[in-house]
């Protein structure tokens, strides 16, 4: 384990930013939120627990151009507009978002591999930061995530006056050696003490005891046919807030944009809450908001785990709890369906 005084954080950021882009959570005055921003001299790390938008944007941006077409007469030219990706570092990712990359990897890196996503994954180094002040909306522990011991290429802790770093991957080792001049070797006493302290707080989390046992593949039909979906979804506005702030929602739509002198084929995030989601020639297979609402939670809690060795497609980051306009959320769904089971 390596260490660096917090007072020297700026030197670390400057050293990293001199070779590649460095993103980190920064307080945004206008919104009152923290958001990932590019570091430059004068930018300071936010103290907020988490960013309003998740970190999935780095690998799976909201909109991205896939390919251009140019037509001339009867010939169509297909132009790959991708430019060589640059290396980048994301600093300060929390344990929940770090887990979300594993969940996205299982979708985008499975055959057929999504080369756009893969490219970004290969060029990004994730430096995580352990949580010290969880929110009431946090329930990552339910999914077996330890917020005091986050994953990522490099795990980080800020304890007292020091930052502690420990590499988990080859990429992480390379990252640490690139800034080794600033780091000193250290034991993990301070980290262990902090972990013990935060674990006491975690015990008090109101959503820490959500019971996931009913959500297993065998119960698929029973859960699907539950009578609760109707009243749970009754007030749903059909907006996409929950899906767009979610670190694990990975559905997208591919569209063509006519620029007047060619076509840009782009993809953008899609939401199962929308009426045109997975629309086919005959229309949307999910006719009302009840089915659309059910799709989101069944996907996270039943379909995805059925296909991925029981891993749930939720990391308990709590963003959807904080952002839903009508305060309906996965925690309420888990409780309501659990009562029934």
């Amino acid at each position, binding site marked *: 384990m390596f260490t660096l005084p917090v007072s020297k954080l700026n030197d670390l950021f400057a050293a990293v930013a001199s070779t590649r882009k460095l993103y980190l959570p920064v307080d945004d005055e206008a919104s009152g939120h923290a958001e990932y921003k590019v570091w430059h001299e004068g930018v300071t790390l936010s103290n907020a627990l988490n960013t309003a938008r998740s970190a999935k944007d780095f690998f799976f941006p909201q909109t991205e151009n896939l390919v251009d077409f140019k037509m001339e007469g009867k010939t169509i030219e297909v132009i790959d507009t991708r430019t060589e990706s640059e290396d980048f570092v994301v600093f300060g990712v929390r344990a929940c978002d770090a887990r979300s990359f594993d969940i996205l990897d299982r979708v985008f890196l499975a055959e057929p591999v999504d080369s756009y996503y893969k490219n970004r994954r290969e060029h990004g180094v994730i430096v995580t930061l352990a949580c010290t002040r969880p929110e009431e909306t946090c329930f990552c522990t339910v999914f077996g995530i330890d917020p005091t011991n986050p994953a990522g290429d490099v795990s980080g802790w800020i304890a007292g006056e020091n930052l502690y770093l420990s590499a988990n991957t080859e990429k992480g080792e390379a990252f640490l050696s690139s800034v080794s001049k600033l780091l000193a070797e250290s034991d993990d006493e301070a980290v262990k003490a902090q972990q013990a302290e935060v674990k006491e707080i975690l015990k008090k989390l109101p959503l820490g005891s959500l019971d996931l046992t009913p959500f297993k593949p065998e119960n698929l039909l029973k859960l699907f046919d539950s009578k609760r979906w109707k009243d749970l979804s009754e007030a749903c506005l059909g907006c996409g807030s929950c899906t767009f702030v979610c670190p694990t929602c990975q559905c997208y739509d591919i569209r063509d*944009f006519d*620029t*007047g*002198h060619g076509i*840009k084929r782009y993809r953008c995030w899609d939401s199962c809450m929308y009426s045109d989601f997975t629309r086919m020639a005959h229309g949307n297979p999910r006719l009302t908001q009840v089915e659309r609402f059910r799709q989101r939670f069944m996907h996270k809690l039943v379909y995805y785990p059925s296909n991925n060795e029981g891993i749930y497609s939720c990391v308990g980051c709590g963003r959807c709890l904080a952002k839903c306009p009508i305060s309906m959320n996965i925690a309420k769904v888990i409780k309501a369906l659990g009562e029934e089971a």
Partner: protein
Amino acid sequence: MQVKETNEFKPKIVAFCCNWCSYAGADLAGTNRLQYPADVKIIRVPCSCRVNPMFILRAFQRGADGVILCGCHPGDCHYTTGNYYTRRRMTLLFSMLDYLGIEKERTRVEWVSAAEGAKFAATMNDFVATVTKLGENKRLEDLRCKAK
């Protein structure tokens, strides 16, 4: 004849003209051989009131540097009252664009009758001059639509 190449900025102007007055006014300007810049592209609409805010915004998206809307004089609308609605609608839209910090001089409404060929030419000359001075539309542009 030699065509002189210049780097001078030539604005793209979209002019929505109502079928009954302003389009005829543009016609008259043409038959009277009144000069106005060729940068003005006219789109004929049945009534100025056919133009909704989306038309204006999409013209900017597609590369226009200025958008002007011409209709019959208030009181002379072929459909009796269409241009009165235009007047309220565009006043509010232009005010909103201004509120967003988008140059208000890039948008204009002008009443041009079928007999006012001279007014049509003069209006266009003036509008083109105004927009030329402002330069390229940057605040309401869609980079994807910019031709390479």
